[in-house]
């Protein structure tokens, strides 16, 4: 399961969901794997404003990953400046989003972000709720949020 998923996950128990302590879920005994994927700058730019950066930093440090910067990167941080110039509006002011996407070259920051969010996956382990302590298992890269009957 790619780490980006954790940005959108909390405890499945209803009474937990609204408590701040239930987000993010905390990985425990996690075995990580890298599943390579194509880097898509536009996708990274678009997902940036949705990231709960501080929480992702917590998860990263709990997993023993290299520390994420204290502030999230900006859209500009993801693209090599030389390519940004090429993608600037033309004289008639038009700008083709498709071309822009093709011409942009990812910075190291973009590569690092892609690596952490989309290629770093939890293969085995648990995700623990910080509020109730319930543990959700991750097996073969699949996190399982089915609850036992008494917790539904």
């Amino acid at each position, binding site marked *: *399961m*790619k780490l*980006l*998923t954790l940005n*959108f*996950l*909390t*405890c*499945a*128990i*209803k009474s937990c*969901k*609204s408590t701040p302590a239930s*987000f993010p*879920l905390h990985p425990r005994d996690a075995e990580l794997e890298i599943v390579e*994927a*194509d880097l*898509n700058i*536009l*996708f990274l*730019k*678009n*997902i940036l404003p*949705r990231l709960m950066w501080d929480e992702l930093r917590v998860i990263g440090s709990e997993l023993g990953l290299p520390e994420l910067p204290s502030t999230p990167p900006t859209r500009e941080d993801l693209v090599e400046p030389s390519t940004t110039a090429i993608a600037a509006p033309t004289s008639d002011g038009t700008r083709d989003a498709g071309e822009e996407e093709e011409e942009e070259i990812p910075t190291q920051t973009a590569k690092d972000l892609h690596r952490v969010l*989309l290629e770093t996956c939890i293969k085995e382990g648990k995700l623990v709720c910080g509020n109730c302590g319930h543990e*959700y298992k991750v*097996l*073969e*890269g*699949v*996190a*399982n*949020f*089915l*609850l036992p*009957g008494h917790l*539904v």
Partner: protein
Amino acid sequence: MADSVNQDASYEEEHVHSVYEQIASHFSSTRYKPWPIVERFLTELPDGAVGADVGCGNGKYLGVNTKVFIVGSDRSSNLIKIAKQHHPHSAIVADNLSLPHPPSSFDFAISIAVIHHLSTPARRVEAVKAILTLLRPPTRDRAGSGGKALIYVWALEQKDSRRGWDEGHEQDVMVPWVMKGKKEKSQKPTKGVRQTAEEMVREEPAKPTEDKTFLRYYHLYKKGELENDVIEAGGKVMESGYEKDNWWAIVGNKV
């Protein structure tokens, strides 16, 4: 109350979940074309939107738009193992009445051919409510600015389908899924069981197996019933219609 809820859940466990778990690989090898309404909904999303596919099955709709991010969920771990291969999306095992997502966090959601598997009116309304809870609320001054969800269910009115159900027929039915060898010819996606088989051709054809019949529980929706459930769940219907033996609705939260 708690007992009856557990009974309903275990009924669905036997007549829905365990069937999908067993037919997962076959289900995934059968042919499929996306339903136009679902495809349109997903392709019209703005780039970068984030959403949930509640009851994503093998993830057939995760392939439609790779410029958005979708967390798919399903009760069947065998289906999720297939669904999780769709980059850049994600897939988890979860129950649609106990979804592990922070409330109000998604721009969109889809739930295609899912809530008709719930066996009581109360649970079907609860399923709609669970989807509405996922969506970003609308901003006060702009109606329609909040997240929206597409819900798609099997219709009672389908007299031209192979099954021939229509107005007046019993709405709670058991529908056979016949698991045959790979020689089975594909049928038009608009007809019969095949139409609920949400699969793609991406996988290798299933190995030949002996014929085996599984029965799945379905609630067939009458005209207007889905919209009523949405209203009862506290939501708003923005658009709704009928497509190929199914009722659908695009829904959101009230301002």
